[in-house]
Every structure is written in structure tokens, then in C-alpha cells.
């Protein structure tokens, strides 16, 4: 079932309001919606709410054999199948373009930016390595799935603890010792922009309606050290180079805010345990 297109009234009102300097939900142009992070009793599970968008990330691990050409490297895998729970427009077993884009973006932001130290996942070189799996479940779709999924994935990885192992000869045993955290190099955070009115107006963290009306979008992935991890502009209207730089500057501020919030949430959770 395809999503219904917004009515002319909604479309024109949204554009007129943006021209007037207002967004439908009362936010400023460069504001994220309220971000809420909820942890479960288990390590490595986090539910992220970005306004009405809801994502659950769950990290799990298992011991597997590494590739022969990379004997010391562990695995990091993402499962980002879009669930029909988030929107009836997502069908089971049929990948939409949106799903491919979301998966690729998360893959680029997290795995290709080498946020996780995969070498540190080696148990016995060429024999046994950890494979870390991140399942991302989209529960409610009110726009900007990418940013929400990215926050959920990295927070879950930071929260996760894997069992400690001891190697005796060729064998390894799972120890009763305290589980250990993953070694994470940096925290990549995505910031998505949507463009309107021939690119004259741009907003951060678009809602579903804004996504339906937008003329183009761009996602910048940065970490708190102001390093660009990924930048994706898949089509849409052409943009000035200056504007991309401006977006990056805005993203730097947003990334610092979100990183601080993630760390505060992790600390608060650690205190409770």
C-alpha cells in the first residue's frame, strides 16, 4: 500500500510557512526534534525516539571463523530491513529504494568510517573472531529514519558488552568474568538536511511530511572531532558549494549536542547498574 500523497493544502501551507520562517511542528530550521534514549535491562539494546520516529537497535555477537585474507579481523554486520510496523508502505520481502538508501547510508556511516575496532575482535588469528551484529528495527516512521537509526546503532554499540574469553592453546572458553565493552574509535553521527524553495530554505531533521514535500536532501556524517565520515546527496536539486559548507558547520554543532546527550544517557544508565 503506497503512502498517500499530501494534499495541495498541506504542501502549499508547509512551503508558505517555511518562507515565513516557521515549521509545522513549531521548530526552528536547524533544530532536531526531542531525542529520547531508553535502555533495557540487557546490554546492547536501545530504543531511540526522535519526535514521533522510533527505532530499536539490538547488538548481539557470536564467534565465527575469519576470512583467510583477513585472519585477524572481526565482523560488523547491520540488518536494516524496513518493517511494515513503521509504515504500511513497507512490504515484507520487497526492498524499496528507500530501504536500500537507508541501509547504504548506515553502512557507510558506521562500518566504512571504521567506528568499531574490528581488529580488537580477534580471538585466535585465522581461527576465531567475534562477529558483531546490529539489528535495527524501525517501529514508527515520521521522517528522518537515517539519523534515528544511526544514533540507535552507535548508542547500542557503545552500550554493548561482549563476553570475555580466555584462549588456552587452540581452544577458547567463555569466562564468568565481567563482560567487556567494544573498542570504539569515534562516534559518527548523521545529520540530515532537506531543501525547499529551490534550495533557498533548508531544515534539519525533516518530518515525514517535510520529506514528502522536499526538493532534495543531504546527509552529513561527522564525529565530534569535526571529521567527515560520510556525505551523501542522492539526487534532488543542485546545490551551491557554499551551502554544503554551511550545512557542515550546522552539522558540527548538532553532532556535538547529540554526542553529549548519548554520553550523558550512557553514564546515567551505567550508574543505575
Amino acid at each position: 500500500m503506497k503512502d498517500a500523497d499530501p494534499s495541495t493544502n498541506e504542501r502549499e501551507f508547509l512551503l508558505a510557512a517555511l518562507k515565513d520562517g516557521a515549521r509545522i511542528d513549531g521548530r526552528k530550521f536547524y533544530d532536531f526534534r526531542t531525542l529520547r534514549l531508553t535502555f533495557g535491562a540487557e546490554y546492547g539494546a536501545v530504543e531511540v525516539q526522535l519526535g514521533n520516529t522510533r527505532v530499536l537497535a539490538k547488538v548481539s555477537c557470536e564467534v565465527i571463523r575469519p576470512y583467510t585474507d583477513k585472519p585477524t579481523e572481526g565482523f560488523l554486520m547491520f540488518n536494516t530491513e524496513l518493517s511494515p510496523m513503521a509504515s504500511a508502505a513497507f512490504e515484507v520481502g520487497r526492498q524499496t529504494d528507500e530501504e536500500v538508501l537507508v541501509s547504504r547510508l548506515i553502512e557507510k556511516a558506521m562500518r566504512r568510517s571504521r567506528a568499531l575496532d574490528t581488529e580488537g575482535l580477534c580471538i585466535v588469528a585465522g581461527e576465531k573472531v567475534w562477529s558483531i551484529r546490529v539489528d535495527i528495527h524501525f517501529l514508527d516512521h515520521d521522517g528522518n529514519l537515517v539519523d534515528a537509526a544511526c544514533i540507535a546503532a552507535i548508542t547500542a554499540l557503545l552500550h554493548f558488552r561482549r563476553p570475555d574469553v580466555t584462549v588456552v592453546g587452540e581452544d577458547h572458553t567463555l569466562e564468568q568474568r565481567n563482560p567487556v565493552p567494544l573498542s570504539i574509535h569515534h562516534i559518527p553521527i548523521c545529520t540530515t538536511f532537506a531543501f525547499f524553495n529551490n534550495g533557498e530554505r533548508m531544515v534539519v531533521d525533516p518530518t515525514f511530511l517535510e520529506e514528502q514535500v522536499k526538493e532534495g536532501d543531504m546527509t552529513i556524517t561527522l564525529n565530534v572531532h569535526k571529521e567527515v565520515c560520510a556525505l551523501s546527496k542522492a539526487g534532488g536539486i543542485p546545490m551551491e558549494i557554499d551551502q554544503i559548507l554551511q550545512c557542515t558547520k550546522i552539522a558540527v554543532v548538532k553532532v556535538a549536542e547529540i554526542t553529549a546527550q548519548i554520553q550523558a544517557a550512557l553514564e546515567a544508565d551505567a550508574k543505575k547498574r
Partner: protein
Amino acid sequence: MASITTEQESELLIVLPGDQLPESGLMEDSSAAHRLTLGPGLAPMDDDSITAVKAGILKHNAVGNRWWVESNQRRYVAAQGESIIGVVTGKTAEHYKVDIGASQPALLGVLAFEGATKRNKPNHNIGDSLYCRVSMANKDMEAELECMNPTTGKADGFGELKGGFIIKVSLGLARRLLDPKNLVLRLLGQHIPFEMAVGTNGKVWVNSASAQHTILLCNGIRNSEYLNAAECVAMVKSLVEKM
């Protein structure tokens, strides 16, 4: 199962699917002792009992011995005579296809407007929002709409909604907004002049002099759903102050 007794009627009487209405309670306060009118949320079962099929509040009206369950949901099921807001999604020579939020698009005859003739009829485009009346609804067929009062043939406010913004609310909230005594609308109206159309399909059209005002009104209406009277007053006050 909680057996339903009529003594409890003064307070909210909540029923769940499967709760049976006692026969004595149904007949008692009716003058025409054997007549009974069942409204939404109640159905006769195979064993001749009257059972609730939705979760909600059991309501009773002594006139005509009517019983129904007042429940809330978000998905619209078309019912004859209701006023709704739809969006034109398609057009043929004889009909507009209108999305009303139900399982299937409804049909609106191109001549079902005030004073429309074959030569002179309003023209609507895909994406236009219309305030219409459900002229026929049946579970086996697409619903049919009209943009006029069937008795007078006059528009009576039905027709295209120009400008403004449309929000989606629960059907229960939409029904409450239709109450002339509705608190949140009165409170908002004290600060901002506005016009609105409420569709029983949960779509609410709001228009005012400026975009900022319309946004505030929409947020106020949406926020009011789970608030009591005092909270409503405080909510509207804080919205107006922020402006």
C-alpha cells in the same frame, strides 16, 4: 467477564469485546418494551445475546431504547450522513476518486455539487481537499460522496477547502471537536480568530490570518486530546505566551 448491571450507569461503564449485555437491562426502561436499537460497537451473537465488539463506554438513550458503545479509533469506516474531509486522488468523466482515509477511495459524482450541470460544473484537481457528505456507505461497496445538502440542493458549506492546513487526529477527538461547547476551541478562539472544518474521518482543516497562528492552532488541537479542563487552559496559555 464482568456482568453489566444498570445500576452502574451513572459512571463510565466500560465494556470490552465479549461482554454481554443482560437482557433485563436492555429492556427495562423502554416504553415500547420489545424494541431495541443497537448502535456501533454492539452486535447480536449466534447465541442471541447482545455482545460488545469494541472496547469503549456503553451508552444508552431511553428514546427508542438505543444502546451503543462509544469508542475511539484512528481508521475511518465510512458511515452515511457523516461530513468528512477528502483529498482528490483521481478523476474520470463521471467521478472524482477521493481518499477519505477508509479502506477504499470514495466516489464523488462530478455533478454532486450545488447547481452543477453537464455544461457548468466545478473543476477540481488531484490534491484538492474537499469537505463532503457521505451520501451512501455500505460495507460491500465504495462509499459515495456529495458536496451539497441533499434536501435543499445547496452547498451548505460543503465544497473545496482553500488554503489552510489539515491535521489528522483520532476519530474520537474529531467527534469532540464537533461539540459546540468544545473547550479547547473556545480557548483558542479567545486569542486567535480562525475558521475550521472538522471531518468525522479524523481530518481537521484549520485556517487563520497567518501561518504561525495556524500552526499554533493545530498544535493546540492535537495536544488537547488527553488533557483535562485545567490542563487544557494551561496548555493554551503557554502556547499563546510563546508566540
